[in-house]
Every structure is written in structure tokens, then in C-alpha cells.
């Protein structure tokens, strides 16, 4: 039996959080937003490179983007939401992984079991980040899509 067939279900099962915990959902969203952001980063670096070509080159680039119609702003809105979520969740993961925050201490398990790593502190962190991200995303929608809210 070849080693690489012994475990492994594949990419889609690894991203499928149905029937699992909140943190597994946040892992899936974190991964998807990360890929969106890297894709956008590559395009954005090429796009801003056109600034070096002068005003005319930049105007052509903007015209090409505007020709996408509403897709341009919707796409930017999705990228903005991805950035908010990936950054916020990333801070939580940094605190979890490098500093052991929200994990709780080793305990003596007592039934009914409730793992401290998925306990109240972790849930508060996840929901706080989700709430802040959603608020920022709504604000971004109002600004980008409705063109409202200039201060």
C-alpha cells in the first residue's frame, strides 16, 4: 500500500467544516480568504506597476477595470472583507499558536467533557472578530457600493 494513500481524503473534505466546531469553520474561511488575498496581491502588484508608465498608462488600466462594471466594486468588496477577516482571525491564531492564549491550562478531565481550547475565551475571541469584521464589511459596502459615507 503506497504511503500517500494511507491517510488523506483530499482538498474539498479538508475544507468541509459541516458538523464540526466553530473554529473549524474559521479555519476554512481563513484558508479561502488567504487564497483570495494572494490572488488579488499578484494582480494588484501588476496593476500598480502601471503607475510607473505615467497618467496615460494608469488611465488605460482604470478604464480596463471599470469595463468590468459592477463586478469591479463587488470584487473589491469581497477582497476587503477577506482582508478584514484574514487579518483579524490571524491575530487570534497568532495569540493561540505562539503565546497559548485562549487555550486554558491542562486540567483533570471531568465528565461532561468540555475542552478548554474550545472554551468560552476562544468563542469570545472568534465571535468578537467575526462581529468586528462584519461591521467593517457593511461599512465597506456602504462606501464602495453605495458611494455613501465620505467623512
Amino acid at each position, binding site marked *: 500500500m503506497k504511503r500517500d494513500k494511507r*491517510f488523506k481524503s483530499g482538498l474539498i473534505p479538508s475544507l468541509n467544516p459541516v458538523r464540526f466546531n466553530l*473554529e473549524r469553520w474559521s479555519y476554512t474561511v481563513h484558508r479561502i480568504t488567504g487564497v483570495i488575498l494572494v490572488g488579488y496581491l499578484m494582480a494588484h502588484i501588476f496593476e500598480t506597476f502601471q503607475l510607473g508608465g505615467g497618467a496615460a498608462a494608469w488611465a488605460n488600466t482604470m478604464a480596463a477595470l471599470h469595463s468590468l462594471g459592477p463586478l469591479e466594486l463587488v470584487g473589491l468588496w469581497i477582497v476587503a472583507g477577506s482582508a478584514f477577516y484574514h487579518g483579524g482571525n490571524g491575530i487570534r491564531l497568532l495569540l493561540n499558536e505562539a503565546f497559548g492564549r485562549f487555550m486554558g491550562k*491542562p486540567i483533570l478531565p471531568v465528565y461532561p467533557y468540555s*475542552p478548554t*481550547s*474550545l472554551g468560552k475565551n476562544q468563542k469570545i475571541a472568534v465571535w468578537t472578530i467575526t462581529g468586528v469584521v462584519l461591521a467593517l464589511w457593511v461599512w465597506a459596502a456602504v462606501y464602495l457600493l453605495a458611494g455613501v459615507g465620505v467623512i
Partner: protein
Amino acid sequence: MENIRLEISRSGGKRASYDVKYRKGMTILDALTEVRERQDSSLGYRHSCRMGICGSCGMTIEGRPMLACQTQVSSFNKGTIYIEPLHNMVVIRDLVVDIIPFFDLHRSVRPYLIRNDIKERDTSDREYRVLSEEVRKFLQFDYCIMCALCYAACPTVALDPFYTGPQAVAQAYRYMADPRDEGWEKRVDLLDTSHGVWRCHMAGACSFVCPKDVDPAKAVQLARMEVLKKRILRRRGKEGSRLVPPHVAVTAKEGVKPPPFDFGGAKS
């Protein structure tokens, strides 16, 4: 609820339905045994202790890895229950999966006390000193029954067959936190690889499904911090705890017994 229907994945991608008469307190394992004894003796599944301590009866029940003996039929509150073999593992037959790779990964992290003085370890008639507050730092991770539910739940195991895995990393940390162990540096090096502790992304599914509250996700993050202590803070491994009382050399001379253990009270 009078009858329940079990939809079970069988070998070859088939799915079979069995109707079982419900009894109060029936577990999924009871229902499977009912099927095998009265309806279909070819149904293959693992089980042993029936009381959640051997870890044999792990399977995917309604999309989530669970122990069949610890799962009440009534907890689903529905008439049809879907049962599949554990995910992320090669199926041998029906609900039986190949868990040899799981045991291989467990063995790979050296899940035993490592001592530098092998002669002392092998010839001693004393115990190594460990205080109860020191035991609390790793006892939770010692409750693992090696049921492999965490591997079935882990999204990285689903993708990367070389990932050390939540159970193995948790056991590595169990020994790293043990004051008797002198293999801290070796274990850090074993975990600090591209398929080691850094492939965990804190999805927490392992802790979510663990039937013994071993909380492997917590152990993995604690293990990560140990790795960072060595790499960034340049910490070195400590000497393990000493024997209690001090080791007395045992002569091999025939008929000579070692001195009796002195409890420190009345003269022996």
C-alpha cells in the same frame, strides 16, 4: 421512537439499510450488533470493551467521528442514522479502517520516557521523583485511548498523509512536560519539521471529537511553544527528575538482596 433505520456504508461504495427495533438506552454499537446478529452477519466493524475505554469502535456517525459504544441512538432524535467508516483512512472492509499508519505515527514520536542513563533506568529498583502538581501538567494528555477520532476530524490529516497528527503531537508533548523525561530536545527536533507541529492550523476539530477530553489542540499549541522556546529563546533540555531515594547499586552476587526501602520512620 419504535424503529430506527441505519444507513451503513458497505465495501465497494455501496450503502445498505437496516431497520432495528429501538430499545431505551440503545447505543449505535448495540444497533450494529443487532444488525449483525439478526439481519446481516457479513457486516464488518470493530468493537471490544463496549464502555469507551478501548477506542476500537470509532466510526463516522451522521458526519462526525464518534465512538459507537458511547453514542446513544436517541441523541440524534431522528429515524434514520447514517454511518460511515472513519474519514481520512483507508477502508479495509465496511466500517473497518486501516489504523496501522496511525500507530506508526504514534510510535514515531517516541512515546516513552527517554533517560540518558540507560543503566540507571534498566537496573534501578527505585522510582523517579514526580510531584502531583507536575503530573497535572501532562495527565490530561495521558488519558488518550488511541481511538483515532482526532485523525478522522483533522483537516490537515485529510490533506497531508505525512502530517504527524494531533494524537502523536499530543503524546510527544505529554512526555516533554513529564519531569522524568530527558528527551525534550530530541522531541523538539522530531516535531519541528515541515510535516510536524507547524501543519496544525488550530481548527480544533480534534478536541471537538475527542471522547476523553484529551484536548489535543491544546497539546499541539503547547508543543509549539516548546519548539519556539528552543529555537528563539535557545532553551536547552533539563535533567530529568532523580530517583527516590538515591539509587543503591544492586550487586549481582547470588543470595545478596538489596537493602529494604527506608520509609524514614521506624527502624526497619
